[in-house]
């Protein structure tokens, strides 16, 4: 029924690390929720179901808790229904999560032979006898990655996460997505073990695409929670890059590199849990004070909300993968695992891996840009709205939640060897080679890459030297006793005000313009010119909105196609009776002609003739004249 092996324990730890600070935050947030009983009931059921997913040892329990997790989180999104958007976001989430659930159900029905009580070992036997393992793999990918939010099943994240109350978005983005990663680990390792090379490549491609697309849409986003949700897509992509590299190395029999990549993926899973929860809590506090999710209405909040600002800064540094943060360490490990691709003999694959390196590096660069934007526009400069002016630090419990979460971030940074040792143990328990001794061959100070000529990093030395040098410089500055004077910012002779600052739209402007072919932004620009002068205006308004490409191409067009087909089906169902006869006649013609083509000789001349006859009869009998 339940099992508690090291992988489960790791994910229990992940959930608890994410949940405990969230409990504080949530209790601080509680007074602002109207439906308290509804909220608390689903909140605790949600946490319990996540724990249930990672400890269940058979398909029935797994599916039960998985579904419970989906339903409770769906209800949690609906806690504060303020507008129609929340309801449609929740409906979209409900649809997407059940889209994934169908595939999981199919997967389990196949690998358990219909008896959902069997354990994982038995499933493996059945799966190895199944003729089309790739089908099972795709069921898993669709099932888990629609929950994790990988491209192209990511579209629900930027809707569902902003709609939920802040503690819930922290939990959903920080923890629930990781439960889907747990599913990937559990069932790919325990049930579908010998992986063909192509599976790893599929995961790597999905990961690279998700990381770039996530960060690009995050940059163009003005809703702070949607921005963070898009970053979740990016980080899930990074995790999947590590995961995919692990699978590729495993199928090429490079076992040490494989374990290293999987450790990198697990480590990034933890890191993303920590900093993304912290970012959502910070965003929630800002939202709570300013009552708007629009980043353009913030500004200058560091002066009134110092704790939120400081913890948000820590998380921003970490998510931007800047040393010496934990985010840097896991991204470093993923880069190192990709550098290990020089050991691959398969030349096309070897030449393709640098493109994934490129994807990850672009993602890193754009993530820095995005978090400078998010932090700078939210917390720095002058307040851009009255609400931002009157904001003050959130209550004690909420700050306690944020501080606890930043302690989790710091602990991941300081105790990296401990966490890596634990991940290594879990992977060894799943039948992989242990590499801890190779990563830390000489004590905990230096982290080595396992590939030949790989890199080395010393997180603690870096942290100590950075703080040391900074402290020394600041001490020198203090010792100099420089005279300080406070004066206005220079504004070319004009007054510096909230309106003269750069806006988030303006900040992302160059990048948006460079990626115009992808964004295809929807721009609204109006101005009231004075006396017909083009360059003199009293009032102007510019707004740009980016509609996600995947949503328009994949989802909206599918919906349109369905509409189109249903229209024709409707037309068909309302024909006059004579047309049914005509249709039967045409169908018979089709059957006769195809019988001739498939079972007798084939010649282009008769084929063309028959096609013409078919077309004419369809035109004359079925479509008929235009009315």
């Amino acid at each position, binding site marked *: 029924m339940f099992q508690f092996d090291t992988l489960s324990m790791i994910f229990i730890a992940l959930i608890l690390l994410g949940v405990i600070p969230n409990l504080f935050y949530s209790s601080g947030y509680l007074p602002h929720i109207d439906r308290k009983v509804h909220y608390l009931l689903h909140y605790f059921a949600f946490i319990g179901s996540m724990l249930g997913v990672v400890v269940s040892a058979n398909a029935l329990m797994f599916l039960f808790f998985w579904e419970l997790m989906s339903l409770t989180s769906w209800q949690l999104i609906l806690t504060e229904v303020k507008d129609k958007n929340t309801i449609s976001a929740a409906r979209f989430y409900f649809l997407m999560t059940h889209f994934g659930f169908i595939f999981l159900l199919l997967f389990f029905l196949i690998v358990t032979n219909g008896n959902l009580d069997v354990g994982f070992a038995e499933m493996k036997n059945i799966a190895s006898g199944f003729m089309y393992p790739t089908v099972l793999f795709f069921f898993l990918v669709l099932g888990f990655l629609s929950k994790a939010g990988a491209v192209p099943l990511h579209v629900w994240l930027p809707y569902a996460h902003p709609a939920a109350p802040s503690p819930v978005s922290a939990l959903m983005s920080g923890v629930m997505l990781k439960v889907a990663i747990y599913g990937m680990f559990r069932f790919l390792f325990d049930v579908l073990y010998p992986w063909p090379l192509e599976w790893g490549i599929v995961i790597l491609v999905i990961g690279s695409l998700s990381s770039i697309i996530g960060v690009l849409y995050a940059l163009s986003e003005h809703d702070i929670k949607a921005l963070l949700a898009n970053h979740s897509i990016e980080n899930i992509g990074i995790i999947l890059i590590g995961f995919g590299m692990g699978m590729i190395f495993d199928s090429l029999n490079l076992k040490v590199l494989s374990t290293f990549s999987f450790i990198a993926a697990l480590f990034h899973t933890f890191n993303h849990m920590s900093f993304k929860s912290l970012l959502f809590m910070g965003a929630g506090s800002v939202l709570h004070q300013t009552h708007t999710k629009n980043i353009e209405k913030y500004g200058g909040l560091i002066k009134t909300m110092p704790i939120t600002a400081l913890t948000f800064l820590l998380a921003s540094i970490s998510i931007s993968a800047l040393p010496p943060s934990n985010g840097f360490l896991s991204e470093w490990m993923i880069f190192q695992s990709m550098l290990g691709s020089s050991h691959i003999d398969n030349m096309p694959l070897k030449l393709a891996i*640098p493109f994934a390196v*490129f994807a990850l590096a672009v993602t*890193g*660069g754009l993530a820095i840009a995005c978090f400078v934007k998010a932090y700078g526009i939210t917390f720095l400069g002058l307040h851009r709205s009255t609400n931002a002016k009157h904001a003050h630090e959130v209550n004690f419990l909420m700050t306690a939640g944020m501080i606890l979460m930043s302690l989790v971030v710091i602990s991941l940074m300081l105790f990296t060897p401990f966490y890596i040792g634990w991940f290594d143990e879990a992977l060894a328990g799943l039948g992989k080679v242990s590499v801890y001794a190779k990563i830390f061959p000489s004590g905990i100070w230096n982290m080595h890459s396992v590939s030949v000529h790989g*890199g080395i990093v010393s997180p603690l030395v870096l942290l100590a030297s950075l703080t040391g040098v*900074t402290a020394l410089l*600041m001490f020198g500055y203090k010792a100099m006793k420089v005279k300080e004077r406070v004066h*206005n910012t220079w504004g070319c002779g004009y007054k510096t005000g909230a309106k003269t600052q750069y806006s988030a739209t303006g900040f992302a402007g160059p990048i948006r313009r460079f990626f115009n072919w992808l964004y295809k932004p929807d721009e609204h620009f109006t101005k009231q010119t004075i006396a017909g002068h083009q360059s003199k205006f009293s009032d102007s308004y510019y707004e740009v909105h980016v509609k996600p490409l995947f949503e328009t191409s994949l989802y909206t067009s599918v919906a349109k196609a369905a509409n189109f087909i249903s229209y024709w089906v409707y037309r068909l169902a309302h024909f006059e009776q004579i047309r049914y006869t005509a249709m039967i006649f045409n169908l018979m013609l089709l059957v006769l002609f195809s019988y001739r083509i498939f079972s007798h000789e084939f010649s282009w001349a008769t084929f063309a003739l028959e096609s013409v006859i078919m077309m004419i009869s369809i035109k004359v009998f079925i479509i008929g004249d235009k009315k």
Partner: protein
Amino acid sequence: MIAYLATIVLLFLLAPILLSFIKALKMVLLFKKPVSVFQGYRNFSKLMHKETIISRETSSITRYAPFLVLSPLLVVMFFLPPVVHGAYYVSFVDAFTITGLISLSTFFLMLLGLDSASAFGGMGSSREAFISALVEPAMVLTVFSVSMMAGDLGVGQAGVNLAEHFPQEHMASFLFAGISFFILLIAENGRIPIDNPETHLELTMVHEAMILDLTGVYLALIETASSVKFVIFASLFVSLFIPLGLEYSTPIAILVFVAKLFAVAVAVALLEVNTAKLRLFKVPNLLGISIVFAFLSLITFYVLGA
């Protein structure tokens, strides 16, 4: 160990001289009366004696960020490749960490730009964010390729390896990586054609726009940071792509190294005199060239066989 520390001090002292030298050389080439090569020191001491003006709109970020801009770069100074034979070098930090530390410095510089609520600062940050987002992939790919050729990802070890066993058979990929890295050197240090360090025109400013509101010691810190950044890139370039002179005796090796640094400075000055600054939206083309060369370098390395 002495050679190691002496090199760091030497590089630190050379940093302002190199930038002033570029400026002086440009002025000579434009038939102007050149500034002294010690102008950097003069500016520094002038700024150190000034009072600091902090704008009313700023927050605590302005008080801390200048230190955080400089300190990662100072830390990187300790990780550079050795200049003389047998000198100590740091083997426990690799090239990725160095690029990360440089990004950390840029991160705080961009926050600093946004802190003063001035339109200039935001503009500079926005442009810098755009450029550095595109520099990142070229940087990582170049590092990747160089580490393959040098047989180590740590820059110290890589410098020594390249000086001792130069990979003749990979000359093509070596050259491609060199071109890519030189473009990065120009882009990261905000030189023409990416950015013009001497202008205060809002159409063209990138780096200057972010620090427009600083003065006194804070400005001195940022100016030091930009000269240190140049010397880091120049010394990485000469150690990795012109790996000559490590085998000579100590004084000659140091002389050769300094001469190579000045050669890079001359190259940058000549480039600056002979090209115009690119429009911001043409910059991606140049960085795209850098990315393509980095890719080519890796691909030729793989195809010609390791």
